[in-house]
C-alpha cells in the first residue's frame, strides 16, 4: 500500500503491464527521451530505462502514430498510444474514428484491436488549443470504450483493464489531476492521489462508484468535475441538503444500474461536465436518465457545463468558463426546490 498521484499510479500500471505481457508497449511523442519528461505529464518517466524497445518515441505525427498503433494491434501487440494534449487527437481523427473504431466490425468481427489511447483534457491556462474536453465527441463513436479516472486508484485500475481489454479503449485523463511534479507541476492542480494496493487489481470498465452517499439529489461527474461535485456536496451538507455524488468512471459503457438506483432514491439529478453544454456528455446522460427514470424523476435533470465558446486564455475568463462549486451547488438547490414543490403539490 502506497500513496500515489495519478501520474505515479499510471506509471506503475504501465510498468506492471509491460512486465506481465511482452506485447504491451507505449507509443507517443517525447515519452521516453533520456533526460526528458516522460510525456507531457511525466506518466512514462523513466520507463525507457526498463523497457528500451517498448517505449517508442515518434516524430510529431499523430495520424501516423495512431495508425501505427492500430496496425500493430491487429498483429497482436497491445499498444498504449498517447497524445500530449487531447486537442492533438484531432490530427489523428481519421485513424481513430474511421479506422480504429471500425476495423474489427468491418472485418466481420474477426480481428481484434486491443489498443489503449490516452488523452489529457481540461482548461489549464494554455488557451483554446490545449484545453478541449473531447469526451462528448467520442461518445457518439461506436467501437470505442471510454474511461475517465478521477483518482489514482481508478487511473491505475482502469488503465490495466484497458490494456487487458481486447477492444479500443480511450482513456481520458485530466491535466489538473495528474499530480505531476518538478518542472511539470500544474498550477491549480487538485490532489487526486490514492492509496494503491500492493497487489494486482483492475477497475472494471463500465462500473461507476458512489463517491459520497446522499438522499436528496444525485450529482454525476467525472474527472475534475467529480472533485468539484464532492466539494459542492460538502457545501450542500452545511445547508442540510444530502447530495449523493456518483463518478461513472466509464462513459462507454455507462453504469446505468448504479446511476438509476441513485436517482430512484433521490428523485433528481445534476450532471456536471467541464466542456461546452450543447452536445455534451450531459445531454446523453440527461436524455437517457429521463427515459429510464421518468417515473421517479421529480424534476428535469439539470446540466452544469461550460458555455458554448472556445476556452479563453485569460484567467478570469477561463475560471468563468469552467463550472465551479457554486454553480454545481446552485443547480442542486434548483432541482431540489422543484422536487419539494412537486412533493408538496
Amino acid at each position, binding site marked *: 500500500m502506497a500513496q500515489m498521484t495519478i501520474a505515479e499510479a499510471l506509471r506503475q500500471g504501465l510498468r506492471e503491464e509491460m512486465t506481465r505481457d511482452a506485447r504491451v508497449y507505449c507509443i507517443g511523442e517525447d515519452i521516453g527521451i533520456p533526460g526528458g519528461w516522460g510525456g507531457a505529464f511525466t506518466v512514462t518517466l523513466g520507463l525507457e530505462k526498463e523497457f528500451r524497445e517498448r517505449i517508442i518515441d515518434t516524430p510529431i505525427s499523430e495520424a501516423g502514430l495512431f495508425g501505427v498503433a*492500430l496496425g500493430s494491434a491487429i*498483429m497482436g501487440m497491445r499498444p498504449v498510444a498517447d497524445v500530449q494534449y487531447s486537442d492533438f487527437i484531432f490530427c489523428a481523427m481519421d485513424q481513430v474514428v474511421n*479506422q480504429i473504431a471500425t476495423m474489427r466490425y468491418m472485418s466481420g468481427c474477426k480481428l481484434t484491436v486491443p489498443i489503449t489511447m490516452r488523452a489529457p483534457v481540461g482548461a489549464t491556462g494554455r488557451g483554446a488549443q490545449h484545453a478541449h474536453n473531447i469526451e462528448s465527441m467520442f461518445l457518439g463513436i461506436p467501437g470505442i*470504450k471510454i474511461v475517465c479516472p478521477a483518482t489514482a486508484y481508478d487511473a491505475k485500475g482502469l488503465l490495466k483493464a484497458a490494456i487487458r481489454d481486447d477492444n479500443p479503449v480511450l482513456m481520458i485523463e485530466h491535466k489538473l489531476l495528474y499530480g505531476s511534479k518538478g518542472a511539470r507541476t500544474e498550477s491549480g492542480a487538485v490532489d487526486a492521489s490514492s492509496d494503491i494496493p500492493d497487489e494486482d487489481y483492475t477497475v472494471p470498465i463500465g462500473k461507476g462508484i458512489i463517491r459520497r452517499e446522499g438522499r436528496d439529489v444525485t450529482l454525476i461527474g467525472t474527472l475534475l468535475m467529480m472533485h468539484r461535485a464532492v466539494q459542492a456536496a460538502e457545501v450542500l451538507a452545511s445547508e442540510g441538503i444530502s447530495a449523493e455524488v456518483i463518478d461513472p468512471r466509464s462513459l462507454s459503457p455507462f453504469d446505468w444500474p448504479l446511476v438509476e438506483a441513485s436517482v430512484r432514491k433521490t428523485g433528481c439529478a445534476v450532471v456536471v461536465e467541464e466542456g461546452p453544454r450543447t452536445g455534451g456528455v450531459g445531454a446523453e446522460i440527461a436524455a437517457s436518465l429521463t427515459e429510464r427514470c421518468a417515473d421517479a424523476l421529480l424534476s428535469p435533470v439539470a446540466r452544469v457545463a461550460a458555455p458554448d465558446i472556445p476556452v479563453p486564455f485569460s484567467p478570469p475568463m477561463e475560471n468563468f468558463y469552467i463550472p465551479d462549486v457554486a454553480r454545481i451547488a446552485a443547480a442542486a438547490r434548483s432541482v431540489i426546490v422543484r422536487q419539494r414543490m412537486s412533493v408538496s403539490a
Partner: protein
Amino acid sequence: MMSNSMEFHLSLYRKMVMIRQFEERVKYLFLEGIMPGTIHQYQGQEAIAVGVCEHLADEDVITSTHRPHGHAIAKGLSVESMMHELFGKSTGCCAGKGGSMHIGDMAHGMAPAIAIVGGGAPIATGMALAFTMRKQPQVAVAFMGDGAVNEGAVHEAMNMGAIWSLPIVYVVENNRYSASTPIAQTTKVANLADRAAAYGMPGVTVDGNDVLAVYEAAGEAIHRARTGGGPTMLEALTYRITGHSRRDPCLYQPEEERKAALTQEPIVRFTEFLLSQGHTQQALDGVRDEVNAEIERAVQSAMAAPDPAPEEALVGLFV
C-alpha cells in the same frame, strides 16, 4: 527463384486473368443491378498486385484501398469468399459487414481494405513495427494510388517506416488519375518515387504493366525489407483503363491517351510475351476458361447463399 520457368509464367498469368475476369463479371453483375453497393475496379493494374504479392506468404501482410479486389485475389483470398462478401452474405470474408471497399481476410494476411485514401499506410507501418518488435521475418506491403501520396497520413507513415527501418514496402500504383483528377494537377515531381528521398529511403519506379518487371523490382524491395534493409517506395507506372467507380465513363481521360493505354495494358502485354515464349493461345484460353468457371461457381454460390438476418448487424462489435 523460378522466375524463368514456363510454369511460373503461367501461374502469374492465371492470377492476372483471375483478377481481370473477376472484375469483368462483377462489373456486369453490378451494372445489371444484381450486385449491391459501389465498386472500384482493378482492370489494367493486375500486373502490380500479382507481381508484388507473388513474393508474399499468408504470414506477410498487406493493406489495400478502395480498389482492393486485385490485391485480395493476388494475396490468396478465394473468389468465393470475396463474391459472397460483395453480395453482402454472412458467408463473405467479412461476414457481409465490410463490402467491396473493406474486403480482406487476415487468415491470408490482408487487413480489411481501407477506403480512406492514404489511411492504410500508417496501419501497414504498424504491422511492420510489430514484426520488428517481435523479431519476426515477415514483411508488410502498403498498396496505395498516386493520389494517396498527397495525403498527410502517407507522409507521416513513410517517415516512420524510414526512421525505424521497418520491413515494409510502400507500393504506389500510379495510374495517372486520382478519381477524375490527372496527376499533373496534383504533383510537380516527375516520378512519385522521387519523394522517397524526403524520407531517406530508396525510391524505385518500375513499369507497372510488365508483370515480370514488377515481380523483379518488388522482389528486391521485399528482400531488402525482410533482411533488415528497411523500407522502399516502389512506384509502378500504369493507367486506369477502367472507370474510377461503377458507372464512370471516364470522359476526363483524353481519347488518345486512353487508346494508347489500352494497347499497353498488362494482360495484352503478358499474353504477347507468353506467346513469344512458346505458350500456345490454346493453353492461355484454357486458363481463362478454368478461371471463368471458378468465378461462375463463386457467383452462383454467393447468389444462392441466404441473406444475413438484419439483427446480425448488432453482433460482434466488441470482443
